[in-house]
């Protein structure tokens, strides 16, 4: 099976303090340990490969389940602070064991299956929502040497498994045999199908620039420096900025986060497709949602924020995977910030925003990326690139936003006062 390209070769970090080097290699530790044990025990090569893959998978799953627990706590605490509250602080120091308590609660709750539900599909849906998220997490490059599965078509693989999420949300909503889940899955499908388009199209510019669909190659391309200092992240180019913003908005929509949390819009349709789930199945949904959030944020980081690369030259001694997770935290915090501030859009507005704003803009980034690539590298070429692409992107942006906003301008309202 040639789906698996060669594992990224282990390169030796030079001129870095020993502690950082050790840290850099830390995620490799279980893998190397198993490899060493296998070597000692003289196991056949295919078994060693299989074991290595299993351990890689176990590391990713373990890391992201921990992240899930931590982020669910961080989310609650951050939102609480935004809202001038303390947030969970009763279980353990600073409420650190709150996720554990939640987990125990979820596990011990009664599993309720509605009478009218399709029993089998009702069971499959929560499992099906976790699988694509875990699969997608498997292809992201977390560090220079930490790529669990290095696929040549990593980006395409990511979107392909992401397509499964829609179907599982639909199954969850439909199999519950109830009305709010049905409405929720209707909303989820139309939202996710629509927002997949800007997601894909804005990633196109990155593929054009890199000339590859391999995620490690994309990061490698961004980890060089302009003028020796400034990092070459895609977000620092005009097409990348627009594409990145569009991609980020589409990410929020794909992850069903506020302001696009219509499928589970609490104030309207209770909990959408999860209404009829309880106990561990509900926890699985929750987990799938968070893992999906990590995956899509990780992809955003990989495509536009330089993946594991350091922002400026001279900071490379920090382990690359620390950069990745630092960026992940920043992206998720931004999403939380947005969640704490904005309200939910309505279905027709959601669609209009996607079709009239995001898709045109993301389509524009493709020719813009072409122009940028055509202009080439170097100071003057960069200047030329900026000069051409910025108006190319800004003018349509202004036109579109003005059209979209023309009926909403607050200045149109006047209020009178009677004595």
């Amino acid at each position, binding site marked *: 099976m040639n789906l698996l390209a060669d594992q990224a070769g282990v390169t030796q970090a030079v001129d870095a303090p020993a502690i950082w080097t050790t840290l850099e290699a830390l995620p490799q530790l279980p893998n190397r340990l198993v490899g060493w044990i296998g070597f000692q025990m003289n196991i056949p090569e295919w078994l060693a490969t299989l074991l290595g893959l299993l351990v890689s998978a176990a590391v990713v799953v373990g890391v992201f389940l921990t992240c899930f627990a931590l982020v669910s706590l961080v989310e609650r605490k951050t939102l609480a602070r935004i809202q001038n509250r303390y947030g969970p602080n009763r279980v353990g120091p600073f409420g650190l064991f709150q996720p554990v308590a939640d987990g125990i609660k979820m596990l011990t709750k009664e599993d309720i299956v509605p009478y009218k539900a399709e029993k089998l599909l009702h069971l499959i849906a929560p499992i099906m929502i976790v699988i694509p998220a875990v699969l997608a997490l498997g292809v992201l490059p977390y560090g220079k040497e930490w790529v669990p599965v290095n696929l040549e078509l990593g980006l395409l693989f990511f979107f392909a*498994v*992401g397509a499964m999420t829609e179907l599982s949300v639909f199954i969850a909503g439909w199999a519950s045999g109830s009305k709010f889940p049905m409405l929720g899955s209707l909303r989820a499908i139309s939202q996710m*199908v629509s927002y997949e388009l800007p997601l894909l199209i804005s990633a196109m510019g990155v593929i054009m620039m890199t000339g590859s669909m391999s995620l490690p190659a994309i990061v490698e391309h961004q980890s060089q420096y302009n003028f020796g200092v400034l990092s070459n992240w895609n977000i620092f180019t005009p097409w990348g900025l627009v594409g990145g913003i569009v991609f980020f908005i589409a990410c929020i929509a794909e992850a069903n986060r506020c302001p696009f949390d219509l499928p589970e819009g609490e104030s309207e349709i209770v909990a959408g497709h999860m209404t009829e789930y309880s106990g561990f199945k509900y926890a699985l949904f929750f987990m799938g949602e968070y893992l999906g959030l990590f995956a899509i944020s990780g992809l955003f980081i990989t495509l536009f924020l330089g993946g594991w690369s350091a922002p400026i030259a001279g900071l490379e001694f920090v382990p690359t995977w620390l950069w990745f997770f630092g960026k992940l935290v920043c992206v998720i915090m931004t999403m939380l910030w947005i969640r704490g501030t904005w309200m939910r859009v309505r279905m027709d507005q959601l669609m209009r925003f996607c079709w009239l704003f995001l898709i045109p803009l993301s389509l524009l980034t493709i020719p813009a990326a072409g122009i940028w690539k055509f202009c080439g590298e170097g100071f003057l070429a960069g200047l030329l690139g900026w000069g051409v692409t910025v108006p190319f992107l800004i003018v349509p942006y202004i036109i579109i936003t003005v059209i979209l906003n023309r009926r909403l301008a607050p200045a149109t309202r006047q209020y009178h006062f009677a004595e």
Partner: protein
Amino acid sequence: MIALSILIPLIVLAALGAIWKARPVHSALFLALSLSLVAVLYLILGADFLGLIQFSVYVGAVAVLIVFSLLITRPSDETKEIARRPQSMLAGLLCSVPVLAVLVYAVSFSTPTEEVAAADTAKIELAELGKTLFTTHAPAVMAVAVMLTAVMIGAALFARDINERES
């Protein structure tokens, strides 16, 4: 070969489910299953790119569109109707069984010899594919592009028709 002989019956079974199930949504889900198994088939045959495209287009778009339409129209189950209409079943069988026979007959004649058929050389080179697409097949690409644009505009207009409200 082993993988193929496991996968192919599964594909056929899933396709059978898709055409036989009485509840429309079940049928659509079986279609999705069958098409994603076909994607796995492509992966096994070495066409990674096509397999992933197949998965994202058929599972991510076509199957989802179909279930979406089913949700909107909410058709009743076809259990009774299929049972009640033996004549249509008969017609279906009468038409499709000869087609199957003819096809299998044709295939059995056109199959190359064993050695040739078992050989294994092909691999999709993405860059190669891209180059061919935009040189040799450029007119076709343009035609498809125009068609996709038309479809997209049409779909957007359709969505507008559904969602736009009079203000």
